[in-house]
């Protein structure tokens, strides 16, 4: 048992945090995050040069990481700085291209941007609900919803149904209709409309690969949430020490103290389950622990975001003050790759399956 970061990961974490601390202030972030194209091409290239993308891929695929712990380190730092560039699709595309045995050098050096089109209006989280389909000539038809990074993507990886199974197709942006928009928590996405769109079939029977990419994505989102939650918590505790009302700092009121402590406790628990999910990634129980982590992150996230606002008071309701942007990101993470209830249902069905029917008492 060892809870230290490995030397390599500590260096990656230090480098990335230092870069983001120096170069990625909240003011800059907000100037980029809410206006098309919802990202900064210079920062994107710098992230690639720092090795952030390569850290998400295994050596076999041309990277130098790709394990749960690497993903955690990167996304926690991104969450701390509220990075709005779409790094999540890089991670998920890397897992999928790897499973398909495709070259991903363009992905990892930042020159080719991918989107991963998974969700549909009636299939937000579960791949078994997917209705987008492909024909024998690899023409893909369907609507993909809230595809993160689709507004920038050169290529879209599409999970589509063909003869009852899920296959993975690669669609050039010119072969799809993409309706881009900015998101409420910053950054961009798009609706991807496919109407007998030309595609390359890159992986048949891709359910396991998609599940793995989703598990990795969940570890990433949970880690991002940890970074954002810790920052929101620290800002809250600082504010409790500064703000005076009734002639004293509001942090001297026990009712606020205890609520701040409860934030800390929830973040520690959320961090623990995220560590566990990261450790299990790629193993037989990856989906189960990813589900546990995403459920807890959803619950803790809502508490941290809402309490950060409430303990601050009116100031946190303003666009100007940073906590509001952290709160939005933390809350909206629950809308990506399965929400609190979706993942709870997975644990509930595990419960049911864990007990053989013993008849009546």
């Amino acid at each position, binding site marked *: 048992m060892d809870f230290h970061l490995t030397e390599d990961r500590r260096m990656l974490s230090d480098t990335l945090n230092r870069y983001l601390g120096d170069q990625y202030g909240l003011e800059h972030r907000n100037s980029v995050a809410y206006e098309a194209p919802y990202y900064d091409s210079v920062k994107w290239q710098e992230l690639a040069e720092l090795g952030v993308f390569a850290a998400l891929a295994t050596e076999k695929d041309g990277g130098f990481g790709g394990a749960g712990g690497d993903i955690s380190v990167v996304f926690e730092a991104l969450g701390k700085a509220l990075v709005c560039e779409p790094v999540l699709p890089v991670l998920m595309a890397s897992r999928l291209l790897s499973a398909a045995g495709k070259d991903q050098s363009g992905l990892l050096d930042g020159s080719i941007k991918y989107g991963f089109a998974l969700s549909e209006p009636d299939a937000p989280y579960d791949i078994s609900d997917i209705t987008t389909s492909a024909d024998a000539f690899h023409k893909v038809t369907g609507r993909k919803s809230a595809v993160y990074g689709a507004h920038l993507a050169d290529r879209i990886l599409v999970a589509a149904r063909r003869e009852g199974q899920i296959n993975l197709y690669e669609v050039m942006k010119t072969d799809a209709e993409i309706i881009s928009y900015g998101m409420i928590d910053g950054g961009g996405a798009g609706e991807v409309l496919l109407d007998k769109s030309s595609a390359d079939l890159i992986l048949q029977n891709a359910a396991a690969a998609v599940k793995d990419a989703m598990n990795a994505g969940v570890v990433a989102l949970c880690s991002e949430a940890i970074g954002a939650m810790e920052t929101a918590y620290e800002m809250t505790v600082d504010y409790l020490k500064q703000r005076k009302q009734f002639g004293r700092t509001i*942090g001297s009121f026990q009712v606020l103290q205890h609520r701040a402590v409860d934030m800390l406790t929830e973040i520690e628990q959320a961090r623990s389950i995220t*560590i*566990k999910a990261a450790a299990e990634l790629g193993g037989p129980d990856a989906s189960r622990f990813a589900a*546990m982590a995403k459920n807890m992150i959803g619950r803790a996230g809502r508490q941290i975001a809402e309490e950060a606002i409430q303990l601050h008071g009116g100031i946190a309701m303003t666009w100007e003050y940073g906590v509001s942007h952290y709160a939005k990101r933390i809350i909206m993470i629950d809308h990506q790759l399965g929400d609190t209830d979706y993942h709870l249902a997975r644990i*509930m069905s595990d419960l049911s399956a864990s007990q053989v*029917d013993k008849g009546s*008492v």
Partner: protein
Amino acid sequence: MDLNFTSEEREFQNEVRSFLSGNLPEYIAAAVRANHGLTKDMMDKWHTILNKRGWLATVWPKEFGGPGWSPVQKYIFEEECCRAYAPRIVPFGTNMLGPVLQKFGSRAQRDEYLPRILSGEDWWCQGYSEPGAGSDLASLKTRAVLEGDEYVVNGQKTWTTLGQHANKIFCLVRTSTEGKPQEGISFLLVDLNTLGIEMRPIRLIEGGYEVNEVFFTNVRVPAKNLVGQENKGWTIAKYLLSHERTGIAGVGFSMQALEEVKAISAMIKRGAKRLIDDPLFAARLALIEIDLEAMKITNLRMLFRAQEQGAPGPETSILKIKGSVINQELKDLARRALGPLASPFPGHVNDGNLLFGPPDTAFNAACYFNNRKTSIFGGSNEIQRNILVKTILEL
């Protein structure tokens, strides 16, 4: 980052497992499984078995007769004991007074008392709380006045757990009313057979007897029974409480409780459907399972930190808060799962079996009520929050 036990630790785990399967008497495990109160004989028996193996005083360093385990080994031992339904070690001598004497006691006190803790000759109990000093422990009023080479003690202690079995009590007493309340407290060892001591049982919410009130009327205690210096008892008290908090997460107990709720809710039916397949119940249970899974890692992270820093930090308060609430939630589900079958008063039931319910569930409701204590004792969860506010948030 590596969440797995080392091969040495796994080997140790196997050693503990095989010891437990070979040495834990089935009738004791059965009583634990049924949430039955244990008799003094059962507790003594288990104490003796552990001592014989050298695994009784797990928190003691080797030089005093402990096994010299790492925090991780202690964790493994506790978890395996829970899994096997071994009783919890009565902590007052081994886990509380032992470490105090090792750090603050005189040579003579160590030589006299430590061996007797191990042998079971002395059964210690705790004289901390008073009717007017619960969470505000420093306001305690039990007086000890030095007369010659004896202290004369007058006052009242309460919540003295298992005092009915004890022959000795360690007490916090007031030896000075000068200065801050914390500055006039001393740590005193008292023989319960001394004239002027009366122990009265307190009947608890579920009907059981596990705590007592202790009354002191002109009780004469040899001055040599003072531990450390006079008026410096508060430091000792805090040291003891920090030891009390390690292992306070009760992860092993909650893991066992979770398995029980799963098993019960697979047996209990609502119509044709198993309760475990009822979405409302399953959702509640799944939420706790997730919380507990996180708690396991939180516990290991803090053990790891304690191992690195040599002592548990204030973060252990997080374990107390979360651990107690998770345990209480599980006991709540175990009670609710039974529905009307939870109704009989266990005082009227002879063993753990209800007439119509699943095995070992007769005490589920009683256990729920009894476990409301876990968020109160050892420093209530609100006091734990105050500790975190001061030490980590620095508000």
